[in-house]
C-alpha cells in the first residue's frame, strides 16, 4: 500500500522522468500554450542552437496580449513593436509547424480561455505557458503553471522542466456563499487572508463545498488568481462537471478513449488522509463582496469597509507599504470604499472574461444606463465567448446600457495594446492585478467581480452589489 497522496502528489509522481541528485526532478510536460510576448526569444534560442521541437503536437499558439480589440483590429495594430511580435508568432508557428490560431479566427482569445474551450486542457496533465496565469487550467485538475522564456525553450526542446517538488497547501472554503458573492470574491478573500506571498513554494488545492458547487467558469476564476496568492499553481479535483465541460470539445479525447480517460481522471482526487503541509479553512458565510483599495491584490477589503489608516499598522514595513499605496491611489484613510468614484470600468481578462461573467454583467445592467461620468469597456475573453454572448443577445444589453463591446484579447488587463487608463484615472476592473502602472502609467485599479464592476458602472462609484 502506498501512502495516501494529494491530487498534486499524484500528478507530480506520474510525470517524473528522473529524480536528480540535487533534489530536483526532471518533470514531463504534456501541454504547452504559447503567445506572442514570451515566445519569440525561445524560438530564436532554438534556431541559434540548431534545435527543433520535441513534440510539435503538444503546442498551441494564440496571440492575445497586444492584439487590438476594436472592430478594425486587422489594420489597427498601433505600434510597430506589437506588429513585430504578432508577426513573429505567426512566422515561428509556420516555420516549426505549430498549431496556430490567428487573430482573425473566431477561436482566438486569451490563452487561458482558449485552452479549455478547445479541449486542450485536460485533467491529470502538466500544462505550461510563458504566462503566470496558466494556473487557471488547474480548475480541471491539471498541474498548470507559468514559466519564463528560458523554460519555454527548455520545454520546446525537451518536453521537460527541471523542478523541485512544491509543498501542498490546502485551502478549504465550505458552507454557502451569500447573495452577490461570487468566485472572484472568494479568490480575493483568500488572497486577503494568506497574503500575496502566502502560497510561495506551494501548490494550492482548493477543497470544500464552495468549489464543488462552482461552475467550471467559477473554478477557473479561483485557480487563475492562485498566482496572486504566491502559488505557482492551484488545483481543483476533477468531477462530473469537469468531464461534461470537456466532452465533445475539438481537442478532447473521443469515444472509447474518453471513457478510458475519465476512469483515470477519477483516480486523481486526493486520498482520504493525505497530508498537506498547511491547511487554511474559511467559512463561506464570512465572505462579503470584495474590492481592493491598494496596489497589491492583498490590499483587499469587504465593500462595506473603509480605506485603512497607515497609523494603525503595527509593522513598519506594512505602514510604509500602506502609505505608498494610498499616495499612489490618491486615497485618504477612513474614506468609505463605496464613496470612491471611478472613471472607467473594465470587464474582461482571463479572470473574468468567460460567458458566465458576461451573463452576470448583463443581469446587472439590463434596462439600466451606465453613469454618464463613466466609460465602460467589455472585452470578451475569446471569439467563442463573443459569439455565444451575441447569440444570447447580451451584446445589445451592453450596448443599450452604454458599454463599448469589443473584440477578444487581454486588453486593459495589462494595457499592452491601445486600451489603457490615462494617468490618474481610476478603474473598477475584473482583472487580477492592481500593481502600480498595471493598466497604464499612473493608472489606479480596484479589483472586483463582474457584478460589482457592472454596479460601479451604473452608479459611477464602487458599489455594494447587494444594495443595487
Amino acid at each position: 500500500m502506498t501512502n495516501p497522496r494529494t491530487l498534486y502528489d499524484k500528478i507530480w509522481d506520474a510525470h517524473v522522468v528522473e529524480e536528480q541528485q540535487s533534489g530536483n526532478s526532471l518533470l514531463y510536460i504534456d501541454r504547452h500554450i504559447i503567445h506572442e510576448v514570451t515566445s519569440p526569444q525561445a524560438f530564436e534560442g532554438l534556431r541559434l542552437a540548431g534545435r527543433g521541437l520535441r513534440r510539435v503536437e503538444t503546442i498551441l499558439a494564440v496571440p492575445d496580449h497586444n492584439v487590438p480589440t476594436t472592430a478594425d483590429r486587422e489594420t489597427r495594430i498601433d505600434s510597430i513593436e506589437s506588429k513585430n511580435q504578432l508577426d513573429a508568432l505567426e512566422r515561428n508557428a509556420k516555420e516549426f509547424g505549430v498549431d496556430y490560431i490567428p487573430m482573425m479566427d473566431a477561436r482566438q482569445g486569451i490563452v487561458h480561455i482558449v485552452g479549455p474551450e478547445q479541449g486542450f486542457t485536460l485533467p491529470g496533465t502538466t500544462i505550461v505557458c510563458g504566462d503566470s496565469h496558466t494556473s487557471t487550467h488547474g480548475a480541471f485538475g491539471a498541474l498548470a503553471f507559468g514559466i519564463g522564456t528560458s523554460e519555454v525553450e527548455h520545454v520546446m526542446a525537451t518536453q521537460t522542466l527541471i523542478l523541485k517538488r512544491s509543498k501542498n497547501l490546502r485551502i478549504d472554503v465550505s458552507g454557502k456563499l451569500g447573495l452577490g458573492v461570487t468566485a472572484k470574491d472568494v479568490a480575493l478573500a483568500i488572497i486577503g487572508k494568506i497574503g500575496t506571498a502566502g502560497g510561495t513554494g506551494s501548490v494550492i488545492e482548493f477543497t470544500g463545498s464552495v468549489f464543488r458547487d462552482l461552475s467550471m467558469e467559477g473554478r477557473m476564476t479561483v485557480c487563475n488568481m492562485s498566482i496572486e496568492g504566491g502559488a505557482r499553481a492551484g488545483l481543483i479535483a476533477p468531477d462530473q462537471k469537469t468531464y461534461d465541460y470537456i466532452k465533445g470539445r475539438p481537442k478532447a479525447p473521443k469515444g472509447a478513449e474518453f471513457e478510458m480517460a475519465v476512469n483515470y481522471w477519477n483516480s486523481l482526487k486526493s486520498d482520504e488522509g493525505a497530508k498537506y503541509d498547511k491547511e487554511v479553512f474559511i467559512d463561506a458565510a464570512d465572505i462579503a463582496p470584495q474590492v481592493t483599495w491598494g496596489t497589491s491584490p492583498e490590499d483587499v477589503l469587504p465593500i462595506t469597509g473603509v480605506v485603512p489608516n497607515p497609523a494603525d499598522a503595527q509593522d513598519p514595513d506594512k505602514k510604509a507599504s500602506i502609505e505608498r499605496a494610498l499616495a499612489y491611489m490618491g486615497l485618504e484613510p477612513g474614506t468609505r470604499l463605496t464613496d470612491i468614484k471611478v472613471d472607467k470600468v473594465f470587464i474582461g481578462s482571463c479572470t473574468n472574461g468567460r460567458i458566465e461573467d458576461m451573463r452576470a454583467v448583463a443581469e446587472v445592467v439590463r434596462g439600466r444606463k451606465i453613469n454618464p461620468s463613466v466609460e465602460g469597456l467589455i472585452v470578451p475573453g475569446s471569439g467563442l465567448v463573443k459569439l455565444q454572448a451575441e447569440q444570447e443577445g447580451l451584446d445589445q444589453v451592453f450596448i443599450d446600457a452604454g458599454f463599448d463591446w469589443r473584440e477578444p484579447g487581454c486588453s486593459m488587463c495589462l494595457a499592452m495594446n491601445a486600451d489603457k487608463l490615462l494617468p490618474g484615472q481610476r478603474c473598477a476592473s475584473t482583472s487580477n492585478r492592481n500593481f502600480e502602472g498595471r493598466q497604464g502609467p499612473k493608472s489606479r485599479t480596484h479589483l472586483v467581480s463582474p457584478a460589482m464592476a457592472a454596479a460601479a458602472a451604473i452608479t459611477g462609484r464602487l458599489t455594494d452589489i447587494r444594495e443595487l
Partner: protein
Amino acid sequence: MDKFTKIRAVAAPLPITNVDTDMIIPQKHLRTIERTGLGKYAFSNIRYNDDGSERDDFVLNKPAYRNAEILIAGENFGCGSSREHAPWALKDFGIKAIIAPSFADIFHGNCFKNGLLPIALPEDIVDEMMKDAEHGANAVFTIDLENLEITRPDGQVVKFEVDSFRQHCLINGLDDIGLTMVKGDKIAAFEAKQKAQQPWLYSQR
C-alpha cells in the same frame, strides 16, 4: 550563459516589499523580440519623470549607486508575471545579485537562467544589510557563490544557501537545455510508457 563565481560591488537599498514585475519592467517595454537592451527600461516607472529625465529620488539614479551590482530589497521580490524580461532588464542594467527575505517562485527560477543570483536571507539580516547599503559608495559587498558567503562592508561574513544544481550551473555558466538534451533516451522511455497508459494524450491534435 555568463558564469557567476564571485563579485565585489556596491549594493543599493530598495526598501520596498512586493516589488512586482510591472515595477521591474513595465508592460510597454515587453514588445520586443530580443533578450537584450532592456536595461534602460528597468524600473522605468519609478526611475524616470514623465519627460524622460531621471528622478533624483530613485536610488539607482544617485551617483553612489549608479554602478551598483547588488540590490537589497523587501520580501516577495519579483511577484506577479512570469516575464523573463524582468531578469533580462536587471541583468542588462548591470545587476548581478539580489538579496531579499523572499522571492516569488517564477522570478526566482528565471534569475538562474540568466546568470543572476537571488539570495534569500532571514529578514533581520536583510534589514541589517539594508542599513549597510545606505552607506552609498562604501556599501561594498562581496558575494562568493562557490563558498556560499557574503562579506559585508564591515568584514562580517554571512552564509547563504542555494540549490546545489543551480549553483553548479551558475558557476560553470551551463545552460540546462544542453544538460537535459543528453537525457533524450530517458525521456523517450517515459513517453512510451505514458502512451501505453494514457493513449489519449498522444492521439490529440
